[in-house]
């Protein structure tokens, strides 16, 4: 892979910021604090054992953030500092349940931005350009189910039906929506929006890079549509031998009468010789009704991620009620299956309920 020329990128960015600051006197400053608490209770069964878990919903974890901005003549300089405040993440649950887990304070965003008619330039830790491109979802139930299905079950180990012992393979080993490189320390550029459409590109450590396209618009009589597409090349990022290229995309449509349909798909192509491409597909159909209710059903499948020939699938149901604008109450159920050559594995079942409260 040809490495991007980082020196010229850096000089361009520094010159750009210096020019903005030199020619534009500050005229408005804002600093804000916001956050949310998102906790759930889950019953889970791996075919041999079952238990109840209480912890943080990794779909949209408990967190707080500071944002600030200063407006110059046509340019807004901004900062975002955001932390996860987590204990007992739903993505790490496994049987048997041994306790509350450990507390962690984790940096999510440490980001500096400059935005204006030229678009937006971001430097620091934050979403890479392709982060979220496989997760576009207008269903209203994404707080409990969306294409990142391992967020509620990634830690559960499949049990071998023959030996009744753990197989050593978890849901998280076999499932991915191939959604960019999440949040990383990057230099990112977003183009201005044109009729709801924009492009983004980012460069991160290890010479990894991401590009993406985004669209979100509402049509009279047809409702809302959101679409995203992303591409990633990890280059030297990550462990030796784990490098890959990857593409993904997602589309969600919400009709004016509440029906909604969401698709996500992606493919990872590992660089390692002899490796096989892994694919993911996800579909969700939902209904929003009575202005505060949303319900959905989902199906997803990832193939060949952990072992060649694997088919890791899930089925799910979700219901969310929003009695007040700042409070969501939710319930969901999911069933995970792993079809693996030469092995017979128990399904994993889970039933969940919880609440997300924005403060």
């Amino acid at each position: 892979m040809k490495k991007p020329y980082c020196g010229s990128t850096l000089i361009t960015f520094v010159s750009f910021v210096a020019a903005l600051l030199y020619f534009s006197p500050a005229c408005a400053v804002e600093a804000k604090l916001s956050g949310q608490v998102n906790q759930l209770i889950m019953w889970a069964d791996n075919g041999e054992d079952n238990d109840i878990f209480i912890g943080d919903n990794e779909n949209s974890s408990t967190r707080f953030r500071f944002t600030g901005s200063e407006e110059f003549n046509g340019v807004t300089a901004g900062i975002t500092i955001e932390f996860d405040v987590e204990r007992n993440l739903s993505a790490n649950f496994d049987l048997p349940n041994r306790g509350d887990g450990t507390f962690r304070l984790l940096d999510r965003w440490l980001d500096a931005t400059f935005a204006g008619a030229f678009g937006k330039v971001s430097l620091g830790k934050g979403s890479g350009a392709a982060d979220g491109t496989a997760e576009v979802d207008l269903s209203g139930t994404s707080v409990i189910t969306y294409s990142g299905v391992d967020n509620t079950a990634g830690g559960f180990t499949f049990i071998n039906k023959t030996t009744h012992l753990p197989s050593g393979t978890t849901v998280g080993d076999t499932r991915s929506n191939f959604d960019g490189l999440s949040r990383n320390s990057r230099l990112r550029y977003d183009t201005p929006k044109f009729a709801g459409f924009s492009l983004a590109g980012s460069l991160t450590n290890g010479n990894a890079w991401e590009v993406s396209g985004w669209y979100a618009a509402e049509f009279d009589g047809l409702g809302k549509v959101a679409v995203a597409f992303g591409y990633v090349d990890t280059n030297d990022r990550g462990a030796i031998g784990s490098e890959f290229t990857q593409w993904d995309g997602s589309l969600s449509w919400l009709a004016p009468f509440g029906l909604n349909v969401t698709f996500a798909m992606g493919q990872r192509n590992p660089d390692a010789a002899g490796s096989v491409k892994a694919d993911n597909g996800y579909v969700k159909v939902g209904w929003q009704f009575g202005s505060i209710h949303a319900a959905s059903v989902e199906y997803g499948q990832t193939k060949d991620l952990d072992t060649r020939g694997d088919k890791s699938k899930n089925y799910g149901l979700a219901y969310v009620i929003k009695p007040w604008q700042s409070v969501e109450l939710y319930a969901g159920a999911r069933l995970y299956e792993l079809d693996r050559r030469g092995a017979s594995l128990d399904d994993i079942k889970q039933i969940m309920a919880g609440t997300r409260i924005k403060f």
Partner: protein
Amino acid sequence: MSIALLALPGCGGKPFVYNPPSEIPEGPGVFSGKDGEFILYDSKSGKGGKKSKAAVEAGAPAAVKSSTEKTGAAVAAGEKVPDSTEYREFQDFLEWKNSKQDAKEYQEFLEWKKWKEFKKWQENQ
């Protein structure tokens, strides 16, 4: 997906800001109110503090609203709200005025005002 991405912008929809499902949702907060964010500092209102509901509804910065309530000066809907420089100058004036209230000259001024009121009352008898 990529075909939809390229084709849809030409269809004339009204753009909206999409909020990813994993991020903090848009909208109000339990404690932060309508904006969903505690305002730690806002140069337009001159100082920190969360906007009061009444001030938000009136479209006036909270700090300006509270100072006008204190001084009894009404801000009618649609009336121009003082900018931050004017507001800061007014605060300085109030501070200066309060600091002078124990002074001998100020007490004498109050006595003089009472005497003027007494004279006016006498004339009306």
